[in-house]
């Protein structure tokens, strides 16, 4: 099986740390070179933090595993430098279809809003994501990625952590100021620390079958069947991936025997019953899985941080695993950088857990609700589920109740202690705690998008109507913000090009279609403060440096 992809093998290379008399100390060690560990490393490298990444294996993910990458994930990958490559290789889809028995119940569009660079979702096998991340790590530099290096022991004190690493050439020890555990659902670091991830185990089994087919058979859409005629009483999901590979996901129920179900001779008839006799296909990869929804109480333990599946796990419905893991690292990287540089207090790092626990709870809630709709837990739940589906054919209200997995949206940190409360009235979605929306802009004649320009440092957006809003005093204020201990780089957002010399740390973005202004509910003089992870942390109707400085102090736990 698996013919469409050749697995790279990465060399184990002996590190000079293995020959050191005393354990060598590094600023940051990341455990796990899956998508989350590598995203963590790339993000830190972009902040000029040297990172050592340890992985017990020497290749990428076996099997397609995480498949759906949502818009926010792609935007984070844009910042890390691999977004375009993912989109080029992946299958872009926005259309979802819901079937009940034999009938199409309704069709939905995941991204009804125009003017965003990235689509609602792309589908791509996880091994491609990991391969591109490894390539990017080598291209970027500053990351020491060590394969076949398994952490067997970890201990910490107030100043950092010490790890014991097992390699094909024996064990060695290393120290670090901060350790980030991205070692997956069965995190060894978590158990070494005596910590648990707690929650609900679902009594259900699912079969994933990746099949290769002629692309003319099915369009690039997400098709979900409730109680399909070819797989009675259960559910089935069809998704297209790259290389003409389709993911088919069959609900098997709890009584299914995973070993039996994994055999090709049992999978092929199921797929055949679904696709019909005339469709040719080849089985590429299969797996039977169960899932849990759980999380750790706190994603931080002293100098050790947990991210991705190590910290929290969700059911696959709604694509919130890899998508939320990348939001963890997006949240942690800039905070760690500021604390390591002595520009923010250690307590800023506690807000990583606060904000991401909140997000994990939201993700667990959403994916649990989807799971309960897809696999009703008692007879009357099933009656309501089927009644909803039956009404959904003709009545739009019922379509809103159908839940085959909600769009994976990033958490809005509404209650975060890092937000500055509004003093003026705003409408729309760009409230403090929200990740920035996107919109087309041009800079010096170059067409692009707003998010291309935001991130890795604090940013300001000052909305102006023209030259008359730009007094020397305003420019001096923006310049002062750029010179501050924690610099804030500003963009003037205007409907047209303004020819005026701008000081360092101030650039002009032309809001070509007026969409930025609209999405930020801006009027002339409106100023937004965005964190290095592109989340809004404060906004005001008139630029006031005292308020901006206070907002940055608040956003950095000072």
């Amino acid at each position, binding site marked *: 099986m698996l013919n469409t992809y050749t697995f790279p093998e990465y060399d184990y290379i002996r590190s000079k740390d293995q020959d050191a008399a005393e354990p060598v100390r590094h600023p940051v060690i990341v455990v796990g070179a899956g998508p989350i560990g590598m995203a963590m490393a790339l993000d830190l490298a972009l902040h000029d933090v040297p990172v050592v990444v340890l992985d017990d294996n020497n290749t990428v993910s076996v099997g397609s595993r995480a498949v759906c990458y949502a818009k926010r994930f792609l935007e984070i990958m844009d910042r890390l430098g691999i977004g375009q490559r993912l989109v080029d290789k992946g299958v872009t889809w926005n259309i979802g279809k819901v079937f009940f028995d034999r009938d199409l119940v309704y069709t939905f569009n995941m991204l009804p809003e125009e003017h965003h660079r990235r689509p609602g979702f792309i589908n791509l096998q996880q091994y491609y994501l990991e391969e591109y991340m490894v390539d990017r790590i080598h291209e970027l530099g500053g990351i020491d990625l060590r394969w076949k290096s398994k952490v067997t022991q970890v201990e910490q004190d107030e100043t950092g952590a010490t790890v014991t690493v097992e390699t094909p050439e024996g064990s060695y020890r290393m120290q670090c100021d901060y350790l980030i555990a991205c070692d997956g659902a069965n995190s060894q670091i978590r158990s070494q620390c005596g910590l648990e991830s707690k929650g609900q185990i679902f009594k259900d089994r699912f079969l994933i079958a990746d099949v290769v087919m002629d692309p003319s058979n099915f369009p690039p859409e997400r098709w979900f069947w409730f109680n399909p005629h070819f797989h009675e009483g259960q559910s089935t999901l069809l998704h297209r991936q790259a290389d003409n590979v389709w993911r088919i996901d069959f609900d098997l129920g709890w009584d299914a025997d995973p070993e039996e179900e994994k055999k090709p001779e049992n999978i092929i008839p199921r797929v055949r019953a679904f696709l019909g006799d005339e469709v040719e296909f080849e089985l590429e990869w299969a797996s039977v899985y169960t899932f849990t929804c759980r999380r750790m109480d706190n994603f931080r333990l002293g100098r050790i941080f947990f991210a991705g599946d190590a910290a929290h796990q969700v059911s696959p419905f709604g694509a919130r695993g890899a998508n939320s893991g990348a939001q963890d690292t997006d949240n942690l990287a800039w905070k760690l950088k500021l604390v390591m540089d002595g520009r923010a207090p250690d307590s800023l790092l506690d807000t990583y857990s606060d904000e991401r626990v909140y997000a994990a709870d939201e993700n667990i809630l959403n994916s649990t609700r989807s799971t309960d709709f897809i696999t009703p837990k008692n007879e*009357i739940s099933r*009656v*309501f589920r*089927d*009644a*909803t589906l*039956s*009404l959904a054919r003709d*009545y739009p*209200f*019922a379509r809103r*109740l159908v839940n085959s997995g909600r769009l994976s949206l990033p958490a809005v940190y509404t209650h975060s202690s890092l937000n500055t409360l509004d003093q003026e009235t705003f409408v729309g979605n760009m409230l403090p705690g929200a990740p920035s929306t996107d919109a087309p802009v041009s800079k010096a004649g170059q067409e692009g998008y707003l998010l291309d320009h935001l991130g890795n440092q604090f940013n300001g957006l000052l909305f102006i109507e023209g030259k008359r809003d730009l007094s020397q005093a305003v420019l001096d204020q923006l310049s002062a913000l750029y010179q501050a201990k924690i610099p804030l780089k500003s963009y003037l957002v205007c409907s047209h090009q303004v020819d005026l010399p701008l000081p360092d740390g101030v650039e002009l973005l032309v809001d070509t279609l007026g969409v930025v202004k609209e999405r930020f509910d801006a009027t002339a003089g409106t100023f937004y403060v965005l964190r290095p992870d592109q989340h809004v942390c404060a906004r005001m109707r008139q630029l006031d440096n005292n308020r901006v400085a206070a907002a940055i102090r608040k956003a950095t736990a000072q």
Partner: protein
Amino acid sequence: MTKLITDPNLLQPDDFYQELTDLHRDLTPEQSAEINAKLILLLCNHIGDQAVLSEAMLIAKKNLKAA
């Protein structure tokens, strides 16, 4: 905030009651359950006020017969 109406609100209560029981007259328990579920969904959407619905659910749950 709207409160759940628990005072008489149907103009012709006997007509309503007859129509409801007629609806179920020749149905199996499974079909009745299906109709009830559809009715609840339709009516809840019509009411649209989560607080009113929560109040109704709370009252409906009171004094359940022992399982």
